[in-house]
């Protein structure tokens, strides 16, 4: 920490900061702004799905030339679902979630003064920022933003003749994502190196909180899989701009045969999902890590099965890299491959089940402190189970045939990775807000936010399974061309109403978040009576995190309610900081 006593200017402190705590706030706030855009888009297209021919002033106001009398154009509908997916998956749930909490917590929870490389950390944020800006700019190009779905399968994404969004909009999308991948890689490498090298004395790997394990493994998955997305995107850029044929072959469009020969869209699907599936866990594992920490703290109990939790994180991580083909059962790839991917995919149910059961057992006979963060964590376990179970249908190739690309899939992945990860992110914000801003968030607003969000989430996504089972394909601009879907129209209206409720409920969060930064009650040093190291740092942020020496760690993170043979708390309270040395005769758990 050479710059420990340097005088900070406004620019080095708030803008080009190399302090992990400031960078984490930058990630969070950028993520929140992207989230507002992403959620707002979902409100717009939900209006279209529920009332396909109705004119809305809000659509007229926001969609400019992409609407006619307040009804959005079909191209714009596809653009909205595409950008909604992209923003939510990458910008909110990858950068917003990992970027915020890995940055904030890794140095604090392992006892390091900062990330291994503060400069690379800063670079990671600014690349993310640039990529966000480019993505936002792409919304304003004349032909509209990328509209080939967030999976941008070629040839649709390669040919502007096929859809207008595949022109400049798609180019910007690809550039933005390429920069995003760079940002994510730099961040992930930093997290891995920091966890490997900068743990304080006594912080063995097996004493790390589960948050650290989750972030660590997530970073590894990111490093393994994100480069493949970059290559997929580069080859697509080549096909689009330099006339190569990696993904394209035998195409006749707008009355002429194009020159492409010998490429295959299936290749793109393989490359895309080689990232795309691990991406689900890049989104989900940090949320599960956050939840593990919050559930243990607020249950005043050790997390049940700590080692099994680590084992299942590793198993999930490993399996996640060999299951990508379950997105492609009916892509035309060899059916034998489909069998292999069915097998590996369904195996993931085992570590996932272990995790869910362990959470439930942690709640059992706890002394639950139902803070907002705890509610969100419990909510996460619920949506994770609901969404995860339907994975048994989708992961089974024989069943996937008939529900592939229907609303059943939409319901499944929104619950299991979308809602779950968002709930985890909210839980993290409520829990670590005192650490980030030295203030407390308002509890009552937090409760309202949770319950409205929870009711809305299930109100939206539970019935959605059933319209999927009725055979309704996703990404349809309207369903009125098929009389056989007339009977799901009312359900779509109800879903949209719940979606609007859910969207509005987030205003409570925004208000709570931004008002609390300035007017929240001052936080105490360890408001949740937690064991982990971050709560031994002063409330006021300082460079280097701890004023004196970095504390030494003597125990794991979960000695909650540890009692001696008389049933009294060994250390007088129901929590024991990791820095507390073992007493004579105390059993190290």
């Amino acid at each position, binding site marked *: 920490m050479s710059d420990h006593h340097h005088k900070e200017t406004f620019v080095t402190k708030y803008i080009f900061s190399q302090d992990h705590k400031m960078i984490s706030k930058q990630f969070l706030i950028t993520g929140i702004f992207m989230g507002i855009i992403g959620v707002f888009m979902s409100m717009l297209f939900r209006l279209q799905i529920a009332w396909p021919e109705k004119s809305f002033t809000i659509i007229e106001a926001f969609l400019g030339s992409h609407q006619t009398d307040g009804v959005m154009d079909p191209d714009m509908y*596809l653009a909205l679902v595409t950008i909604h997916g992209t923003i939510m998956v990458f910008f909110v749930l990858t950068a917003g979630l990992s970027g915020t909490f890995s940055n904030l917590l890794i140095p604090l929870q392992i006892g390091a003064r900062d990330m291994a490389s503060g400069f690379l950390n800063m670079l990671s944020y600014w690349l993310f920022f640039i990529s966000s800006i480019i993505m936002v700019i792409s919304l304003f190009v004349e032909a509209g933003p990328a509209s*080939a*779905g967030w999976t941008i*399968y070629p040839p*649709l994404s390669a*040919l502007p003749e096929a859809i207008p969004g595949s022109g400049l909009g798609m180019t910007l999308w690809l550039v933005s994502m390429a920069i995003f991948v760079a940002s994510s890689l730099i961040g992930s490498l930093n997290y891995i190196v920091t966890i490997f090298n900068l743990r304080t004395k006594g912080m063995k790997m097996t004493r790390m909180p589960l948050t650290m394990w989750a972030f660590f493994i997530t970073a590894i998955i990111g490093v393994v899989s994100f480069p493949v997305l970059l290559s997929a995107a580069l080859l697509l850029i080549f096909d689009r701009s330099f006339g190569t044929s990696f993904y*394209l072959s035998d195409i006749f469009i707008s009355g002429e*045969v194009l020159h492409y020969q010998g490429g295959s869209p299936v290749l793109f699907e393989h490359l895309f999902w080689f990232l795309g599936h691990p991406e689900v866990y890049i989104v989900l594992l940090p949320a599960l890590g956050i939840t593990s920490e919050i559930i243990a703290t607020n249950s005043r109990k050790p997390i049940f*099965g*700590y080692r*099994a939790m680590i084992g299942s994180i590793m198993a999930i991580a490993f399996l996640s890299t060999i299951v990508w083909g379950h997105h492609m059962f009916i892509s*035309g790839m060899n059916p034998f491959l489909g069998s292999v991917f069915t097998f590996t995919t*369904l195996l993931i*149910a*085992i570590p996932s*089940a*272990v995790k*869910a*059961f*362990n959470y*439930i057992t942690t*709640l*059992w*006979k*706890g*002394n*639950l*402190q*139902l*803070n907002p963060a*705890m509610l969100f964590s419990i909510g996460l376990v*619920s949506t994770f189970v609901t969404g995860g*179970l339907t994975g*048994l249908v989708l992961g089974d190739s*024989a*069943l996937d045939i008939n529900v*592939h*690309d229907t609303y059943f899939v939409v319901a499944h992945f929104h619950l299991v990775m979308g809602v779950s990860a968002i709930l985890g992110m909210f839980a993290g914000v409520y829990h670590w807000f005192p650490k980030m801003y030295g203030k*407390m968030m*308002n509890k*009552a*607003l937090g*409760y309202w936010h949770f319950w409205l969000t929870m009711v809305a989430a*299930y109100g939206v996504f539970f019935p959605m399974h*059933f*319209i999927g*089972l009725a*055979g309704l394909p996703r990404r349809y601009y309207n369903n009125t*061309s098929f*009389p*056989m879907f007339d009977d799901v129209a*009312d359900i779509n209206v109800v879903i949209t*109403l719940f979606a609007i409720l859910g969207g*509005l*409920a987030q205003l*409570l969060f925004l208000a709570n978040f931004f008002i609390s930064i300035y007017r929240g*009650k001052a936080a105490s040093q360890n*408001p949740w009576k937690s064991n982990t190291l971050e709560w031994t740092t002063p409330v006021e942020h300082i460079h280097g995190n701890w004023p004196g020496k970095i504390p030494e760690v003597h125990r794991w993170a*979960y000695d909650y*309610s540890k009692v001696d043979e008389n049933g009294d708390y060994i250390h007088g309270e129901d929590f024991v900081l990791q820095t507390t040395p073992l007493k004579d005769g105390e059993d190290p758990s």
Partner: protein
Amino acid sequence: MLALFYIFIAVAIGVSFWQITRILNLRSVIATDKDNDTQGKLFLWFTAFFYAMMIYCLIYMNVLMLPESASIEGEHDDNLFNITFILIGVVQFIMQFLIFYFAYKYRGKKENKALFFADSHKLEAIWTIVPAVVLVVLIGYGLWQWNNIMDLSDSEDPVIIEVYAKQFQWEARYAGDDNTLGRGNVNYIDISNNNTMGVDMSDVNSKDDKKLSAISPVMYLPKGRKVIFKFRSQDVLHSAYMPHFRAQMNCVPGMVTEFGFTPKFTTEEMRVQSEVVAKTAVINEIRKKKGEDPYEFDYILLCNKICGASHFNMQMKIVVVEQEEFNKWYAEQPTLGQELAIK
């Protein structure tokens, strides 16, 4: 409906403002015993809402579901789906109850002590092994069925049909008397000469092929005979989805993909099938209210891979008839040789 919508928004905004103004004088930040009690009880109320919703959906949305499989191969899909669905239903009902009930039951009180319970190899072994055993069954049945559907090698005397996708229309070509499709490639497309599917007319197998009329094409299939579909696309990815037959396959430019099934019921038989009758009645009641013509059940092929602006309206009607009727219909269709020679 719209009035309800605005009321909904107004209420939500009202609540927001009411709460936001309260923030200034409500300074409590950490859950007290009273909060734990309230929130714990809210979990019970939520459980009631959630279970009511799940049960409502399961019972009342049943009528919206696709009717039983109209293909012989799809029967096992339905079976496997039912087994899986009952299984996940049971697990869902138990696990959600445990989550929310524990949240209520163990809501914190000052005088309570949590149980220090960090590990139990026995419990962990149970919930590793039980899911593993259940999965072996599901995987086994699933893989057997997958193989069953995808293996088209031993089909006897199948009907061979090429399904051809383009923005935003389906076409189809039957293999003719020799039951072999002539070669196709985008380079042979000749719109002015009506060769819209790019069939190589110099291939000897092409002349007897039969193409559906491009204007509102209807694909006829014989009941009880295996149909093998060869899928092609001329521009972007499409997906040929025939939900009633539990059939779907992507159409990929530059390659031929395939899928096969044996139709089990004719369209007429399906129209009087009890699930179809119930679903049609619901639909027609809705259509009547909107003043639209009544709907009659038909099999359908629709596009299920995002393919552009009119993706939502890319469909083709399928009619399943008895073999004799199929033969009669088939004989009336002109061959490609005749059709393309006339022009």
